[in-house]
């Protein structure tokens, strides 16, 4: 009976140890009864041994020159990926300055020379010089010379240079007059974040997260007491950071240190007990900006977790 179920496929799988216990027992029973099956079995054993012996790669080691080649390929690919193209987001702020589209330049050239010109040239932007000297009204005075020299482009350049010079000069003499002013100028509050400082536009905030039992717990989530957890936080600024636990009106310092913008701050594991809620405050401070990020988590007792 059994040998009718045991075909060659099952027999070869038996030889190669690819069957479960139940199937193996069935094959063994059939083998006891059928001489023909035993002959086939021997053939499969021989061919299997032959294949494993001749094609075995367990002792083969990758040659050094191949390992080196693979690592070089990997390095080349990584280097290529790290270098952003001119169109990528990383270069976007610069591309708008240095890589002005040609069409825009044409429009600007037309704008610079516009109302005074009445000849046919005004209709052919390509043939017109960007800043034609004869396009300005001829005023025989000192101011006309200045006006001729200071067109829109120049004004922007000189204005920018002058403003940056003044800005640097203040800090060269004394940075204190600007600092308190700066902190009062911009106070931005976005939900649980607080940004204070003169330059908050470039601050890229990421929500801090808690990880416990291999699970990501967002703000207002629940953590379990007496089980270790860690805080994942990417600093938005270069500066000094401090992490506090808020308890009523008081703040207890948990960690502090130096942080670099965009880098992951590796914090030690924490365990909390005997409290129903955990409030955390992360603060990063540098000379210009203060960023405060807050988290609130509900602490579940271990019994509650079991019930859940």
């Amino acid at each position, binding site marked *: 009976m059994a040998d009718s179920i045991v075909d060659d496929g099952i027999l*070869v799988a038996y030889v*190669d140890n*690819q069957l479960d216990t139940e199937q193996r027992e069935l094959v063994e029973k059939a083998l006891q009864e059928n001489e023909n099956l035993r002959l086939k079995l021997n053939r499969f054993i021989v061919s299997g041994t032959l294949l494993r012996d*001749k094609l075995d790669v367990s002792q083969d080691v990758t040659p050094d020159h191949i390992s080196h080649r693979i690592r070089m390929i990997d390095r080349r*690919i990584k280097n290529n990926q790290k270098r952003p193209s001119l169109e990528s987001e990383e270069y976007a702020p610069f591309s708008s300055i240095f890589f002005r589209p040609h069409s825009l330049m044409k429009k600007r050239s037309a704008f610079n020379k516009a109302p005074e010109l009445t000849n046919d040239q005004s209709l052919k932007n390509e043939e017109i010089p960007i800043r034609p000297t004869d396009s300005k009204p001829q005023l025989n005075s000192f101011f006309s010379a200045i006006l001729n020299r200071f067109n829109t482009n120049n004004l922007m350049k000189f204005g920018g240079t002058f403003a940056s010079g003044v800005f640097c000069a203040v800090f060269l003499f004394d940075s204190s007059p600007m600092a308190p002013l700066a902190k009062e100028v911009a106070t931005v509050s976005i939900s649980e974040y607080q940004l204070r400082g003169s330059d908050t536009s470039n601050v890229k905030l990421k929500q801090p997260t808690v*990880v416990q039992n291999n699970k990501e717990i967002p703000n207002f989530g629940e953590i379990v007491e007496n089980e*270790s957890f*860690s805080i994942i936080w990417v600093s938005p600024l270069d500066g000094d950071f401090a992490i506090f636990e808020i308890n009523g009106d008081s703040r207890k310092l948990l960690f502090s240190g130096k942080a670099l913008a965009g880098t992951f701050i*590796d914090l030690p594991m924490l365990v909390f007990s005997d409290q129903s809620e955990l409030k955390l405050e992360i603060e990063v401070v540098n000379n210009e900006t203060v960023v405060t990020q807050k988290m609130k988590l509900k602490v579940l007792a271990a019994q509650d977790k079991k019930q859940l």
Partner: protein
Amino acid sequence: MQCQDIANKVTQCIIFCKLKNQPYTRILELNLTNKLIKIWPKLLKYARSLTGKEHSAEDLVMEVITKILESTERIAPDTNLEAYAIRAIRNTFFNEVKRQQKTTSEVNDDGISIYDETPDENSGKFTESGDLNKILMNLGTKCKEILVLFGIGNSYKEIADVLDLKTGTVMSRMARCRDSLSDQWEVS
């Protein structure tokens, strides 16, 4: 550090990569390169069974490794890299065969490349199992593939995954091919 803490740290790394909008497989990149180096002999043996030539096989494997390293984002952390790479080798090879078929008439109807007709017996380890390789070349691509995959240490399930077949089909094909192999081995 306890196991749970390590698990938390790994999750931390993955979430960090998410926050930074970077593919989290980057964490495993170094590991990936090392894994590819480790499985190189297996990949080469399989590629050699397809191409029949040492140098072509080496080029084929290197091409696939480059493709894998270029698209690490596509590889999930739990991917069986060996099966993935073998499948990539297979696809790359047969695509090349098809391309050759379109451009030349030197590929026979069985879908076997011109490589198969001139096995390179004077190169490296290929000659160590020269007799077996000669026999394998005569068995046809389907048998050759399944026997080589088994010989280099894959289970039937892994073979089924690589060749996109059912395990039952692998078993019956294996039996048929092993029969043919035994016949030819006895003759030789």
